[in-house]
């Protein structure tokens, strides 16, 4: 899968510092076209409002908002969204969590805390070299 460095990326997390961190790391890697959402509901609204999304990077535990797993399932169930690569970035690291995310259709899985190198590596695993 070729990567467009200007693709529109949606980052989803209920933590404002985490959104800043991910945005900053993406910028370091070379991706500057980033929008933010604070939970699954907010993200779905943004995804459905405008098209052209190239990637979703989402947290899992975002209660009381919509968590990352049901958000992922909604994305994979929607004809207009199911093709969008989805990377889960989460503190949930138990085997059952990884299995559940993979079965739901996640493209890759990053555990927090992480750094730019890890994020870049996972994006390369999804898109190929860039």
């Amino acid at each position, binding site marked *: 899968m070729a990567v467009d460095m200007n693709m529109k990326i949606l980052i989803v997390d209920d933590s404002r510092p985490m959104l800043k961190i991910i945005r900053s790391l993406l910028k370091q890697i070379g991706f500057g076209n980033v929008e933010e959402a604070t939970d699954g509901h907010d993200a779905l609204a943004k995804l459905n409002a405008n098209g052209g999304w190239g990637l979703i990077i989402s947290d899992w535990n975002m209660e009381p908002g919509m968590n990352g797993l049901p958000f992922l399932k909604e994305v994979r169930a929607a004809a207009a969204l199911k093709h969008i690569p989805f990377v889960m970035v989460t503190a949930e*690291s*138990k085997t059952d969590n990884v299995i559940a995310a993979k079965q739901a259709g996640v493209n890759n899985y990053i*555990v927090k805390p992480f750094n730019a190198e890890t994020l870049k590596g996972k994006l390369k695993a999804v898109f190929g070299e860039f």
Partner: protein
Amino acid sequence: MDLTGILSNKLQKLKTAKNDGKGVNFEDISQIMVEVIDDLKGTFLRDSIIYRELESIRDAIEEAKGETITILSDDGKTIPDASLQLDAVIKQSEDAANDIIDAACKIMELAPDNAEISAEATKIIEKCDFGDLSRQRLVKVVSHLQNIETRLNKLFDALKMERKETDEKVCESGVVLTGPQLSAEAPSQDDIDALFDSL
């Protein structure tokens, strides 16, 4: 069994004893009254407003504590999960603060003659006391919750209420969410990658 049922049972015992010609003595009546009072205590209290309020408090504490605090174990010893989690928070905050301070100092070294950069880097360093302040507040909160929990558990035992031991959150998909694991137990990204690629 409700109050009417309890009293009926006891009265029936007395009637039966009388009908059987065994007679009913003071000790028999005393024993039955003691049993009635004990049963009434539990039944009445279970139906009382106070009991329902206590249940609400218990449920609220269970929701609030999440994974970080467990109730007293049956042998009365506090399972030290709360302090382990708190220690992990403190250590991570301190490590992060140290790294941030080091980076800010490095920035100042790289631009020693730039007053504006020095001022901003200084602000960063100053704000790195968040870890210490957070830790102090967390310690207080955990302590308060544990005190309340200890007192409530004693009351629950006295009222013969059930304890709830739920420190796992099950999300709507049926998967248990446990949050960040302690360092000693947490898998690395490499472990996660190996699992992910094997699926």
